[in-house]
């Protein structure tokens, strides 16, 4: 009972915070946002590995293995295309920019 409450609490808090942060993402970055979120849905790989650790037999093991591969493709591919896209967004070539280089989030 306590467990399900903890899970629901995490789910709710995560959803509320996500709601707040996603509003701040400009439409300029909606495609990378979506592909990154896409990669996150591959978190199912953790569930699939959990199943694999239970040592399922026969057909179950095969299905679990398929789930691991599908979710990993999702994670790696999703983050990969996001990185690829975000690298393309560049600012106007002014001298000031090229000196500063890529700005760090805390700068």
């Amino acid at each position: 009972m306590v467990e399900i409450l903890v899970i629901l609490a995490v789910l709710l808090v995560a959803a509320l915070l996500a709601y707040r942060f996603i509003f701040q993402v400009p439409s300029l970055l909606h495609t990378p946002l979506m592909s990154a979120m896409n990669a996150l849905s591959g978190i199912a790989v953790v569930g699939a590995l959990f199943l694999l650790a239970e040592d399922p037999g026969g057909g179950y093991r095969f299905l679990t293995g398929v789930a691991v591969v599908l979710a990993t493709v999702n994670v790696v591919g999703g983050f990969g295309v996001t990185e690829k896209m975000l690298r393309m967004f560049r600012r106007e070539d002014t001298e000031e920019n090229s000196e500063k280089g890529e700005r760090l989030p805390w700068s």
Partner: protein
Amino acid sequence: MELNLVVITVAVVALFLAGVALMRSPTTALWGNRIKILAMAAALVFALVEGELWTSLEAWLLLALGAALGLILAWQVKMVQMPQAVALFNALGGGASALVALVLMLMEEGIPTEIKITMLLTVMVGALTFFGSSLAAIKLRGQVLISLIPRLPGVKVNLIILILGLVAGAAGVISPPLLTYLAPLAVILVVVYGVFTVLAVGGADMPIIISLLNSFSGAAAALCGLSLQSPLLAGTGAVVGVAGFLLTRSMCAAMNRSLPAVLAGFAGSVTGEKALDKESVPGEEIPEEEGSLEERACMALQQSRRVVIVPGYGMALAQAQGAVKELVETLESKGKEVKMGIHPVAGRMPGHMNVLLAEVGVPYEKLYDLEAINPEFPQADLAIVIGACDVVNPAANTAEGTPIYGMPVLDVEKAGRVIICNKDEAPGYSGVENPLYKQNKAITWWGDASETVKQLKELLQESGFTS
């Protein structure tokens, strides 16, 4: 629940959220992505350690295979193919969640009813995402085979299939002996619903359906987390679900569609037969101009100081991004101020047009969204429309009863002059005629945008005039 599971969950989900928060600006978004990668790696390490799979060759091989395929896909994909790539990844995520829940459901004995319901729901949502998204990906690639699949006679039939699927699932849960038969039936019916919904969707509605399926893949992961009693999956899935939902909502607003109608499989059924009142064409304050197309276009380019370029999906179809970038540079070399107005549904997925322009090297400071650019049009001397029709159609503000009435559009008709580089004068996807084409201020140049935009640039170069 073990303490370390709670700690790692909170840490990973917090990092995912921090990564999302950093996407508020293009300067920090790359770091946002890397933080998310780091958090995901931490989650994987945790799963391997907890499950004592560190030494399992099988686990490592499966992960390596997935990672290799993912890297190849990410490496190969072109920006114009991004919608189908995202649709494919959605399908994989949903499919994985469904498989995990399916194996759990079949393998474990004596599962409590509420967990069984969650598992069945996970399989239903995951399978719907897998098949719906795969079909969307195939459709976006433009495979001819799709047109051979018969369409359903109406929206109602589709909704009935969905309701039957849900009833079958509910009945199976209430009477456990029947679950063996009813659970597969429920999953099949829901999948059929998903397939027909995606089939009914037209090309221009794709941004909505991709966002929606993205949301579903998150919901599947969250449900999978509830099935597995894993707060990590539940929290992460919730983040994805919310993101997909918000994007779906903003796409619906930008396309003038209601979300329930899209869910009912309504999205594609647009009838744009209503004729426009041709008498009430606004913006006739300038007299009809004399001269050939080239002369008028050249004059408009030379005399303008402030220029707004509005690209649409037609630009991507004509592969004219490179030509557009050169036009921007030429205009600027002549001392003109150039901005680009991007409609939310200018591409095939949210934000797609920005990515296409970033790919050819247009700096993102020049890209303005609808709210930012619309107040600029009255001050603009010239708007150049490239491969866009519905998103610049002034009828959306005036023509009641047409499918686009009320849809937010870019107000190009408020600019001094408008050059339109579209393929032809046929209406856009909505089927509503564009009265802009008939206005005196409009210089319509039909043809392949990659050619016409290049000609525009050359006209400007040859004129040698600097404002």
